[in-house]
């Protein structure tokens, strides 16, 4: 099966500044991949090259088997930029109508209504963009990105303007999209969000992928903590499987055990370590 996104040896230089230094990345069919990294790490550049908005210096990017920037690649993807804006004079319905026309979608009014419902804007199809809150505009942006049922969705900080309820809505939406086989590359600073929904995570820093894997594989065992009558004892090298043995030995040694905790590093710890913070 052709991956939704393949990035190979991607480099981008802006003058003497190296934004990307040979990035390799793959997003499989129906996979939800989180892209993490500090500001200026190269995440948005990677997404923009995938969208054909920025020309790479070297390397190759293909979207569903077609080179990034080609008509077929454009037809296969949906995109919500980090710093986006829609014409403030047009309504939500008109905006989606424009994108339907440009993408060649034959979904008509039914598709527009379904997309607005999906992002909980179904009650305001005729509201002008200029009269919407930033959060509503961001949800409209997600609906816009979904016009024409793209196979790959590129979302650059899609929840930055949303309140916790809005974020939960987007999380649920992403999970529903994954179930439908849509691949998503999610660029976000919200580690908890990425940890909750993403199948894979890639951490990028100074234009390079410095860590990648499933969230479960990235978070490492951090020891076992046991609460006894004598106080809390930490076995730093121990893993989850070692917990029963440790408890047995402590009880055999006459200690009273009140609680056992298996410690793991969080994605935040992994991220901070990977980017050297």
């Amino acid at each position: 099966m052709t991956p939704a996104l393949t990035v190979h040896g991607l480099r981008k230089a802006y003058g003497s500044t190296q934004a990307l230094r040979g990035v390799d990345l793959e997003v499989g069919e129906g996979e939800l991949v989180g892209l993490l990294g500090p500001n200026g790490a190269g995440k948005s550049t990677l997404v923009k090259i995938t969208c054909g908005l920025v020309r790479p210096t070297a390397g190759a990017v293909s979207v569903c088997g077609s080179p990034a920037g080609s008509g077929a690649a454009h037809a296969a993807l949906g995109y919500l930029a980090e710093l986006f804006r829609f014409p403030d004079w047009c309504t939500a319905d008109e905006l989606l109508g424009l994108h339907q026309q440009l993408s060649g979608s034959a979904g008509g009014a039914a598709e527009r209504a379904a997309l607005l419902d999906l992002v909980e804007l179904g009650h305001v199809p005729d509201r002008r963009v200029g009269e919407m809150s930033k959060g509503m505009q961001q949800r409209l942006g997600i609906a816009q990105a979904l016009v024409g049922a793209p196979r790959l969705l590129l979302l650059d900080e899609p929840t930055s303007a949303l309140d916790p309820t809005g974020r939960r809505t987007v999380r649920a939406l992403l999970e529903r999209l994954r179930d439908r086989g849509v691949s998503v590359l999610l660029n976000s600073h919200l580690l908890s969000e990425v940890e909750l929904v993403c199948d894979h995570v890639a951490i990028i820093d100074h234009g390079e992928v410095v860590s990648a894997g499933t969230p479960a594989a990235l978070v490492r065992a951090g020891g076992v903590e046991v609460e006894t009558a004598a106080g809390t004892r930490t076995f730093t090298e121990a893993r989850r499987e070692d917990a029963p043995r440790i408890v047995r030995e402590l009880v055999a040694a006459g200690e009273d055990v009140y609680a056992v905790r298996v410690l793991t590093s969080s994605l935040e710890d992994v991220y901070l370590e990977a980017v050297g913070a």
Partner: protein
Amino acid sequence: MTPPGGLRAALVVARFGLRESLRRRVFVVVALLTLAFLVLYGLATWQAFEATDDFDGVGTAGVEPDVVVGATLAGLAMFAILFLGTILAVFLTLGAVRGDAERGLLQPLLVRPLPRRVLLLGRWLGAVAVCAPYVILVALAAFVITWALGGWWPDRLAGPLLALALGVAILAALSLAGSILLAATANGIAVFMLFGAGLTAGLLGQIAEAIGSDSLDRVAAVATWALPFEALYQAGLSELTADTVGFTRLAIDLGPFGGAESGGPLLWLWALAYLALVGVVAVAAFARRDL
């Protein structure tokens, strides 16, 4: 799902631009200001023909005063209309690429299967669909006013109207091309400076004609052809009185809008080639631009 072809997609972009102009009430403002211009023009025309009534049969030496006044006023109107059309063309296009990209408006559109050259074509078509009919209609209105108040009508009608329309189409293309490299304000200034340079070249040609300087005339000709909207305006002016002869012709040539070069069919071909050239340069520059 089949994305629209080149021209169809360009028309989608053009229609969206027109809808924006309608929604933002651009046309209402333009219509009100144009109405004010035409009223002022009518008053001036009425006063000018009233004044020439005193000349009838008194020392006019074979010159038809109404023709001189009518042609001069129509020449003035054409200049004002070209200026108004230029303002419209510039304001509809000055931030079309860099301005819209900096505001984040452009990227969502270009992620669609919409080639950059098609987006440029659409924005240009949208601007021309407003500016070209505008200059044609306002020039026609000015000619009708001149005829109604003084009985003068241009010797030829199509030439001046088409010259104005093609002139603003070129200015819209220059402004659109400028918007790829320059920020909106800088682009607006640059296009108006080009417009001023064209105007200066035209005036230079008239000075050359008055003092009989061939070399100055050549400089003016080269400059007006380098900025063909000015050469087209001059051609349109010359068509206004193409069939006027004798002392009346001489009197018109001595006026501020006399002595214009017609340019001939070559000018029209050059103007179209110039338009195509601006388009090619714009497409090449846009293709290289990171957004």
